[in-house]
């Protein structure tokens, strides 16, 4: 029975001790400790949400990048296409020009040839006239000697003087 009879002294001292201990620890231990723990939990939470935010930003940046890249690709293709077009245009232009020039040259050459030809024909005609006169002169001088011979001569001369 003695064991389960509480002593007044111990009750008194336990009460006093616990109350004192409570106030000392609450003020100098629990408050700063729990404060530090809560603050840390808060900072962890903040850091996590910041990381989440950064992740989201990264994702949006990535999609932006892709967009820009696609645009760049399209632009490049357009540029290339344009360049190709310009190239083929230049080439075809050059070809046309060359053909034209060549045609012109040929035309000019033809005209020149024609001119030359007509000049040559003129000259030839003149020469034929001269020659004919010479022949006629010689024929006339020889006709007097021998008619047959003259004919033969004329024939020879004509044979000899081949036109062209």
């Amino acid at each position: 029975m003695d064991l389960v009879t509480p002593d007044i002294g111990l009750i008194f001292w336990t009460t006093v001790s616990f109350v004192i201990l409570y106030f000392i620890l609450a003020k100098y231990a629990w408050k700063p400790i729990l404060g530090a723990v809560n603050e840390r939990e808060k900072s962890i939470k903040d850091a996590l949400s910041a990381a989440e935010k950064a992740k989201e930003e990264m994702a949006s940046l990535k999609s932006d990048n892709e967009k820009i890249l696609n645009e760049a690709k399209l632009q490049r293709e357009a540029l290339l296409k344009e360049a190709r077009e310009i190239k083929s245009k230049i080439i075809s232009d050059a070809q046309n020009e060359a053909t034209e020039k060549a045609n012109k040259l040929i035309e000019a050459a033809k005209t020149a040839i024609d001119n030359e030809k007509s000049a040559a024909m003129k000259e030839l005609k003149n020469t034929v006239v001269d020659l004919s006169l010479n022949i006629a002169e010689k024929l006339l001088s020889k006709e007097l000697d021998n008619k047959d011979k003259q004919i033969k001569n004329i024939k020879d001369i004509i044979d000899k003087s081949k036109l062209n």
Partner: protein
Amino acid sequence: MLLKSLKILVLILPFNLFGSTVLEPGDSSEFDVNKMIMHHIKDAHEFHIMDINGHPISFPLPIILWTDNGLVTFLSSEFDHDDSGVKVVSRKNQQFVKYHEKIFYASEFNSGSYISYSQEGEVLNKKPFDFSITKMVFSMFISMLLLVLIFVLTAKSYSNSVKGIPTGLSKFTEPLILFIKDEVALPMIGKKNYKKYMPFLLTLFFFIWINNVMGLIPFFPFSANLSGNIAFTLVLATITFVITSLVANKDYWKHIFWMPGIPVPMKLFLAPIEFLGIFIKPISLMIRLFANISAGHIIILSLISLIFIFKTIWLAPASLFFSVFISLIEVLVVAIQAYIFTMLSALYIGSAIEEHEH
């Protein structure tokens, strides 16, 4: 020779089991296990350290009495290790004797002591109010110092750390604090209100735990069975009861005296049961801690006593093995008991401030 070596063994062993009742060489008196165990688990006015050659070495503690003639203080060493009401100390025209670790006014000297008994063997002497710094109070003060030291240093370690990362002592103490916060306060009281009760729960848990552990340490200045003393558990349970009753909301009282949602006869039937429950809860807290810790001490002491009951040293290995085994279990038990006391306190507080939705 055997007894001498036994005594040395006992001195080295855990627990300063033997007050002045230790077996002397050639002493024919029987070894009283019951007396020894009771002596150990009860309070004392001096802190017995050990015996050397039958002479007890004790740490004297102040005796503070509120007597008919006012306050009386003296050191317990004035009783000269006497616990049988023989040695008388006189102060302020009053005579005091110590008998079974209690202070009495001395009566007439009869049959060898200043204690007089009734027919049934009860002590008839009057008792002054005893506010002495007993062994348990002394032990409690040490536990307070330790707690303040440990947790103020813990708090300090945070101010030196970067971003509240636990360093030094707080590496050990913080998990315990977080355990009380996350496993006791939050689930039992709830997110809304738990912060208000954290200091109380933490103080309660560590106060009980450190005193439990100190009771298990078998040498001076520990080994006092404070948390196995009914006065200690009574006070803590009463504090929980007072807090619970003070913070309780209307719903709590309504659920006790007029349980909603059931027929009137049942309400009338339940009201007295619930009303008794208010008191049974803290009483169960008180008895649980007291009985568990006392029982642990008694088991360990009994196992050690087997050597003396069977009067053979050959039992010592088995006895030692079992007492070490039980001691290890006790290390677990004392932590669990501190946890249970705290958790149930939190549960009672939580149920008192709970907001019902119906």
